[in-house]
């Protein structure tokens, strides 16, 4: 853990009397190492270290009784604050339907999350609908339909022969939701690379059509779905998705693994967007609200 490593640093410095700035700088190297090992992106680590440096070489640490505890507290507090301080929920529409758009890289867990969100809303007594906007991946539509059967939520699909584009499917789905009385519409989209111009434009068009052709408040949420094991690349794609779409939230998936999850800090730091949920299993009940303090201690190891 970080405190163990810091103890190690201060142990070899002990016996020289008071703690100096140089000693703390040495200890901060361990913090930098811990963050990089936890997959926090390099430029986020640099900014973070610059932020905590002044506090760390302040009199509280240098003249305090326990520099290790002081430094760990400074690091932890800064991490928690950066991660968003406290849990932030989903924006729900004043009048239905609420429209939630899921996006992210290939394999990040969007379709599974769609099912989990549907189950979550159904449990709250709402009437959600899932929309199969991934027309590319083999059996993506079928995958969502199977989940729909599992969580007992309707899935809007258009036949492949109709050759309708994903933005069109989204529009027609919402019309159907209104007619059908569904108060939450969750749009599952195909995984895509942030550098794929055409597919990023498709998402931009989906958002534009929803807000311009249906309602300026649509979509109420645009959630970036991020795999907890992502490394340095997090800053790249998070920034691209955010610049293109204006994200409203992030969901970290596969948090039930042993990845340290530093990508969460990278995504939050570079977009300023709150992390709203965590995926913690493959099952439809594997969804938990996001707690910054828990992730902070996980990142620090």
């Amino acid at each position, binding site marked *: 853990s970080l405190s163990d490593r810091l103890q190690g640093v201060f142990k070899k410095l002990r016996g020289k009397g008071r703690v100096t700035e140089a000693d703390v700088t040495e200890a901060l190297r361990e913090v930098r190492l811990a963050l990089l090992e936890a997959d926090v*992106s390099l430029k986020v680590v640099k900014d973070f270290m610059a932020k905590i440096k002044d506090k760390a070489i302040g009199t509280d640490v240098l003249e305090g009784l326990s520099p290790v505890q002081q430094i760990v507290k400074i690091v932890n507090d800064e991490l928690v604050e950066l991660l968003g301080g406290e849990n932030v929920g989903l924006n729900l529409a004043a009048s239905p339907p609420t429209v939630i758009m899921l996006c992210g*890289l290939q394999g990040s867990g969007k379709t599974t999350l769609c099912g989990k969100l549907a189950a979550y809303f159904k449990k709250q007594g709402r009437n959600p609908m899932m929309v199969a906007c991934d027309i590319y991946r*083999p059996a993506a539509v079928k995958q969502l339909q*199977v989940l729909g059967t599992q969580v007992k939520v309707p899935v809007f699909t258009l036949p492949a022969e109709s050759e309708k584009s994903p933005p069109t499917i989204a529009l027609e789905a919402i019309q159907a939701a209104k007619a059908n009385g569904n108060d939450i519409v969750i749009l599952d989209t195909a995984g895509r690379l*942030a550098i794929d111009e055409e597919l990023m434009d498709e998402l931009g068009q989906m958002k534009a059509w929803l807000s311009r052709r249906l309602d300026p408040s649509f979509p109420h949420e645009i959630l970036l779905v991020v795999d907890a094991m992502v490394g340095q690349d997090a800053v*790249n*794609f998070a920034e691209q998705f955010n610049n293109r779409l204006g994200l409203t939230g992030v969901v970290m998936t596969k948090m039930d*693994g*042993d990845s340290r999850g530093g990508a969460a800090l990278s995504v939050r730091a570079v977009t300023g967007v709150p992390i709203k949920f965590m995926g913690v299993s493959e099952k439809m009940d594997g969804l938990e609200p996001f707690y910054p303090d828990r992730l902070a201690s996980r990142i620090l190891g």
Partner: protein
Amino acid sequence: LVTGRGRIDEALFEELEETLIQSDINIHTTGRLLKVLREAVQDERMIGSDQVMARLKAELTDILAMGGSADRYALKVGEKSPTVYLIVGVNGVGKTTTIAKLAYNLTQQKKHVILAAGDTFRAAAIDQLEIWSHRVGTELIKHKEGSDPASVVYDAIKAAKARHADYVIADTAGRLHTRLNLMEELKKINRITERELGRPADETLLVLDATTGQNAISQAKEFMKAVPLTGISLSKLDGTARGGIVITIADELKLPIKLIGVGEKQGDLLLFDPVRYVESLFE
């Protein structure tokens, strides 16, 4: 980045450290490489940054080449057909798509391939592989959803023997290496394969997602404990992530990278080339 002949100074080493870290090369591997470079600059009295770059690329290539010749990356063919490939890895990394690409590659070479729908758990996993098997033109052995994956692989090998097929490629469900019961399931699939084939699978490939950070080391270690991995298939290299963690994996675990995935279509699979890969780190 560093092109042409520049000075060798601290700024050069900082720039190199940045590039290596941002490619997801482990910080300790990076530290070791920079140390080697600093010593080389002294010992060999280097005067230009181009010499440092050349040396760094050589070090990285050596680690990835693992002292093997080009055929170290070629996929093994069984001494007796069918040649069997087992594809494993955590959730969403690209196993099923990699199998489709492999199958396409082999059918292009006029090989008779049978696919085993060994993911009997995830929603529409069998459907997904079935669509690919139609597109590529291979046979598919599948059971009902929820059935025992080991029995699917067993049936596929049996069918391959009966039909004199050249290859069996078995898909498995994504599983986190932290799920001990799922790793036990994988061991069972491996045991059944070995027993029916009379030897271990000719390739047991771990698929890693190039966007994965340090956790890939943990994945490789744990999967290695469960099954005799023979190599890595690094997918999604068509994105901006470079999957540099494979350098640490090659260095510490001696696991060769055999394949790379560069897209979502059946043709998007390449044999791993260390020289080209190392070049791409500095582009």
